[in-house]
């Protein structure tokens, strides 16, 4: 009798363990993105202009430098932040200054942002300033987009290909 009780007890314990493992291995489901929504993903890496222009060193400047460091041009490493703006149907979706990376602020600025929006048609405008100008933008691209549910709409930026890329 005791053996049978033990057998049943062990069976129940193993069954419960299997139930917990089997259930939580896949359930409950998790909703990462509302099924009716699409995702606009802005992602790029781009170096802005140097904060200051290169300048020709004078003879006095050169003489103050050690002989092995006497280069005629002085080019400060520090770069300007990028200004990025996304506009969706006339509304500003995102606008931010992206600082340069690196301890000396001489690296590329990086953007990685995600925006969940309802599926549908939109007019999208992307703008970017990477020069030393104070107003306006150096790059701008607009498009009409039709976002389907769960679509991953990527905005990349590659100046060698003309600026913004809508993928």
């Amino acid at each position, binding site marked *: 009798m005791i053996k049978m009780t033990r057998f049943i007890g062990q069976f129940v314990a193993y069954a419960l363990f299997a139930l917990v493992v089997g259930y939580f291995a*896949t359930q409950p489901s998790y909703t990462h993105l509302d099924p009716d929504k699409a995702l606009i993903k802005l992602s790029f890496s781009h170096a802005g202009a140097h904060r200051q222009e290169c300048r020709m060193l004078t003879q006095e400047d050169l003489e103050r430098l050690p002989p092995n460091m006497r280069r005629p041009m002085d080019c400060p490493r520090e770069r300007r932040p990028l200004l990025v703006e996304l506009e969706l149907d006339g509304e500003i979706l995102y606008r931010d200054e992206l600082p340069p990376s690196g301890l000396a602020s001489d690296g590329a600025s990086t953007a990685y942002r995600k925006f969940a929006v309802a599926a549908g048609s939109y007019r999208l405008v992307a703008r970017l300033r990477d020069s030393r100008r104070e107003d306006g933008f150096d790059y701008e691209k607009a498009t009409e987009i039709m976002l389907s549910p769960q679509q991953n709409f990527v905005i990349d930026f590659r100046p060698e290909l003309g600026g913004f890329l809508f993928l």
Partner: protein
Amino acid sequence: MTGLRTVARAAFEGVDNVFNSAFTPALNPLYHLGTLGWFFYWITIVSGIYLYIFFDTGINQAYESLEYITNVQWYAGGVMRSLHRYASDALIIVMMLHLTREFVMDRYRGARWFTWFTGVPLLWLVFACGISGYWMVWDVLAQYIAIASTEWLDSLGIFGQSIARNFLNNDTLSGRFFTLMVFIHIAVPLFMLLVMWIHIQRQRNARVNPPVGLALGTLGMLLALSLARPAVSQAPANLDRVPSVIDLDWFYLVAYPLLDRIPGLAMWAIAGAGTLLLVMLPWLPPGRRRAPASVDLDNCNGCGRCVDDCPFSAVSLEPRTDAAAFSHEAVVSDDLCTSCGICVGACPTATPFRRTSELVPGIDLPGLRIRELLENTLSATGNLTGNARVAVYGCGHGPGLDHLRGPDVAVLELPCVAMLPPAFIDFVISRDHADGVFLTGCSDGNCHYRLGIDWTGQRLAGERDPYLRKRIPRERVAVLWAGINRGTRLQQEIHAFQDRLGALPPFKRRPYRSPGRQPEEEGGGPHD
């Protein structure tokens, strides 16, 4: 905190008792959480090696090869895949229970810090193994994990280029990432094995395999689950679409939904702070370090019994440093000693029958010297009355003992009941200090000092030196491994023991001959 820990310990031991009823203490899975972890690890390794034979790295090939394994070769590859998944999930469960249990049972401080400390990186390694494994399937779950993981890594800001950009869309994805994942998924478990080996280095007689019965039952359970609910892939990954509703493995991915809501750096801070807290726990107050065991060379002949019995490898035999005619002496490592006193219980010189001027054993515990234990025994049993006088020796980790004291019951507390040399039982009974001896402590299979219950049982059974001498009738010795929840049961068992003692014929004691004195039937000094 202590009150909370006591409640948690009582809860654990309550569940232990239920499992003891079903499995017996020898097969109770809650007493084998560590070894079950090892067992699940080996199942994932063996099943993983099989899967790797058929697995193909590549953006499309990874998913297709797993579909073949799961659907075409369901009877072998499919079962192996399910075993791989479910054993790794079970590993998380036993690992977390193991961690919680050791914390609640207060088995992580003092000299035991090393085992706790080396267990913490295993948490990260196990999760790294599981997450990289899911990644390799390259279904929508893998896509979600890949993007969430790389975004989280990018949030550190230490990588020159964004890793998440590798998963922007189908055009940016490279097959090399799968090669990297395969490497990680093989290298991390191998490294984990090394850390697991380090984790048990300070345990003497460390067990890495569960009992056969438990292993077979667990394997059978996993096989049944694998057949009843085979592990399958979800829809193939498509980076042009965003996974919406995902079937998560909550054992490994419980933190991922948080990444959708909490900034990556905040998650790093939480994970880092949690890890730091775990690492620091052994040194956080209240500290309870007691003085380690000490060796008295004048009484140590280097027999090595203390070395054999120490559960934490804290005692070793070293070449003799004095002029004694023995080759070795016992040496205690203060850093490893938990002050359990089991070594004292193993020392053949720790006997109250010694006829030297002072009872000083070869190895002793400064917090409770064997001489004090003898004095306490004589003091506690001195006023006992009746024909069923019982000396109860219990450990400080079992049920409360104070309420047991009475006119016919003496109570003596030890750090671990295995600190009691069997000669004390002999002494108490044969010298008529009590009619019987009752030993109690932690619940069976759950010894606070790992091996105290085992060694005590073997010494009483005459299977381990020092033995309890045969002249002591075993019906005058009783044992109950009670745990903290069974105080009432302990009281009942002691009463029942007293009833049995009362019904026994008087114990025929051998005449005691003191040196230089005439034989006497009763009494006599303990070590004169």
